[in-house]
């Protein structure tokens, strides 16, 4: 039996000329784990929202959708609300209660269920999702990953038939993201719920899927099992986003099944094992432009120390990446360096006073009603810079109407209007797709050549491995290890890139896809 069958579905937003979705035909089986991929703007969100009556965008709809054999559009609200669950990418804004148990109970309360039934259901789901310790806590005290898990749990408590997720992990740190996807897979296995998920980062999601649907400009290009997809997408730009194992498989044109996991991928590489190693780039050895020596910091007088005897030195003209789990204090360090907070002990020295700071939420940089007005308030000669960023078309838009990547670029552009010497970036790659990320990375490297220093807090280890000079790991209030990127990532087992895990013990110091290719080529050349 099919949960959804989408027939000749087309959709157009009211004031757009292009169809956001055109002529989609897709059947989604009961209990299937369907991954939807596609470049930014390809219509993933639009497609997912079409499946949920309460969230369907307004516009011109053609074709139809059947849900369990009935017309979805005519389904009664009381049937559709509990049967189809929906989760979006903002963990925080989706919460509606001040306490965890209130959130879990919210949907059940809406259905008018009996108090005792709710009590049983809420208890069961809290323990299934490991939220028992947090049960009575305020939701504001949860970490981002826990918030998203709570969103999932509270949707699941309504016993849905299908659960639809739109980039649920884009705001989470790598470990929380893996945990979230695992919980999802477990639900799919244990309860047989149908899962439909759109994701940009496929490293972890790809292997979980039964089928992967690839959208291209609003059309369904194909919908295949993940192993088959790698070959079909060979010439597409999107193949850059596939898991490293699959990309290497594509590159090698090997026969046999396409590997999806590190375990499967390693077999494929072993025959290339060779002496070649990635040489470590020489580090810049300028004076330290920022130096923190044994700084201590806490937010509240009686609170816990967030930073304890933390030391950090950043040299002029380098790209320093700082990683660490949620809540380890990464944003706090940036704010201290920027001067928005002051350490209560220790010495913090800035050799330059022209710092610019990109907050974790780039929207916080914009206070006016259009990007242009915001730029104007900083510096009147903004046009040239905007052109070099390729954002001159966005100037008249409201900052909140920009897509994630556009917003991030506009924010960095606004910061550069101050012509700073040091740029402090707090998770600039959050919510960007791989292409936007690469562009951003390349752009930053250009600027660094011109003398900029960048300190970047990031969860995105691939981004750090590709673009940073040095990388540090924040743990337990201090920087516990710090090195050039290749040494750093090849030394770690979990806090590292998939490429490094794939090649551990095979290629020395290879931490990015490009490194792997270099090693393979060197091996073939021999």
């Amino acid at each position, binding site marked *: 039996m099919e949960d959804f069958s989408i027939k000749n579905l087309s959709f157009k937003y009211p004031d757009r000329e292009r169809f956001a979705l055109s002529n989609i035909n897709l059947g989604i089986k009961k209990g299937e784990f369907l991954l939807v991929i596609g470049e930014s703007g390809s219509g993933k969100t639009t497609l997912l929202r079409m499946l949920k009556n309460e969230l369907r965008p*307004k516009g011109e709809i053609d074709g139809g959708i059947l849900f369990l054999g009935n017309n979805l559009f005519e389904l009664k609200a009381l049937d559709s609300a509990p049967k189809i669950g929906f989760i979006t990418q903002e963990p925080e804004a989706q919460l*509606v209660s001040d306490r965890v148990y209130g959130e879990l109970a919210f949907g059940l309360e809406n259905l008018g269920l009996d108090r005792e039934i709710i009590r049983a259901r809420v208890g069961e789901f809290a323990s299934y999702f490991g939220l028992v310790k947090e049960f009575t806590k305020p939701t504001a005290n949860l970490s981002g990953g826990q918030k998203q898990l709570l969103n999932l749990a509270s949707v699941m408590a309504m016993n849905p038939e299908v659960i639809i997720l739109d980039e649920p992990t884009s705001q989470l740190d790598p470990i929380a993201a893996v945990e979230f996807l695992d919980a999802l897979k477990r639900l799919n296995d244990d309860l047989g719920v149908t899962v439909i998920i759109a994701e940009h980062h496929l490293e972890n999601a790809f292997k979980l899927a039964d089928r992967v649907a690839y959208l291209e400009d609003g059309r369904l290009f194909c919908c295949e099992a993940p192993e088959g997809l790698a070959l079909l997408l060979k010439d597409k730009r999107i193949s850059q986003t596939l898991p490293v194992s699959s990309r290497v498989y594509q590159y090698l044109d090997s026969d046999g099944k396409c590997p999806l996991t590190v375990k499967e991928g390693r077999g494929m590489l072993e025959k290339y094992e060779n002496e070649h190693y990635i040489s470590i780039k020489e580090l810049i050895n300028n004076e330290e432009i920022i130096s923190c020596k044994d700084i201590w910091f806490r937010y509240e007088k009686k609170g816990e120390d967030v930073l304890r005897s933390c030391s950090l030195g950043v040299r002029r003209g380098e790209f320093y990446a700082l990683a660490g789990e949620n809540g380890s204090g990464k944003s706090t360090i940036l704010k201290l360096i920027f001067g928005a907070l002051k350490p209560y002990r220790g010495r913090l020295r800035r050799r330059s006073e022209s710092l610019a700071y990109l907050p974790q939420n780039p929207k916080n940089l914009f206070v006016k*009603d259009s990007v242009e007005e915001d730029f104007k308030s900083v510096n009147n000669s903004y046009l040239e810079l905007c052109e070099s960023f390729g954002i001159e078309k966005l100037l008249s838009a*409201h900052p909140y*109407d920009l897509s994630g990547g556009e917003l991030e670029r506009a924010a960095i552009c606004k910061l550069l209007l101050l012509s700073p010497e040091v740029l402090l970036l707090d998770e600039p790659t959050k919510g960007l797709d791989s292409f936007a990320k690469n562009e951003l990375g390349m752009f930053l490297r250009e600027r660094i050549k011109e003398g900029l220093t960048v300190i970047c807090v990031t969860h995105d280890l691939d981004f750090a491995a590709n673009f940073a000079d040095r990388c540090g790991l924040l743990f337990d209030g201090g920087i516990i290890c710090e090195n050039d990127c290749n040494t750093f990532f090849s030394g770690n087992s979990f806090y590292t890139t998939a490429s490094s895990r794939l090649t551990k013990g095979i290629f020395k110091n290879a931490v990015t896809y490009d490194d792997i290719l270099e090693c393979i080529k060197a091996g073939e050349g021999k």
Partner: protein
Amino acid sequence: MRKLLILIIPLLIIPAVVVAGYIIGRNSYAFVSALVVLLGCVPFFLAFEDGNNSGRRVVTLAVMTALSVAGRFIFAPIPFFKPVTAMVIISAMYFGSGFGFLTGALSALISNFYFGQGPWTPFQMFAWGLIGFLAGLLSDPLKRSKLVLILYAVFSGFLYSVILDTWTTLWADSGFNLTRFLALTATSFPITVVYIVSNVVFLLIFTPLFSKKLDRIIKKYG
């Protein structure tokens, strides 16, 4: 039943309480007034519960309330600058009088979670609620003319201070003592004036901004 209650409370129960208080005598005035303002809030709560309020409206009410409460923290470093009254008026102007009452009443209730509940809570709830309610009734002239807006801001500043001073007087004297009332009003007068000025400033700046923001949201999300 509830619909009936919405009518019965203001028309029957409140007068009955007042009469009963009068019969019992002077000592009960403060108690009766507290009861009356609490009962005064109830019809609005009931109407909200019964009304056909979509998720959007409910969230908007919560957001407006939260903004006015958080405003009290946010502007704490700037003395006398408390945007609560202004936010309540804005909320009433754009979302109607019932909504305005609730924004006011809930702002008082919730902000007292942080600043301390006390016997004054019901009076604050009622005072801010009433300011919101009246602003909702006057929303058209308020939107059209800056002068009306300024006058209303001044009026609401006084209304708030009169309601709270009346209660203090009733409480302290078990009856209405004009001298004490005047003395209270006089001591709080400078503060009231500062509040009024800050309200006017706030309203003049934020009313146009808010309407622009709201229009954008409505256009974007329908």
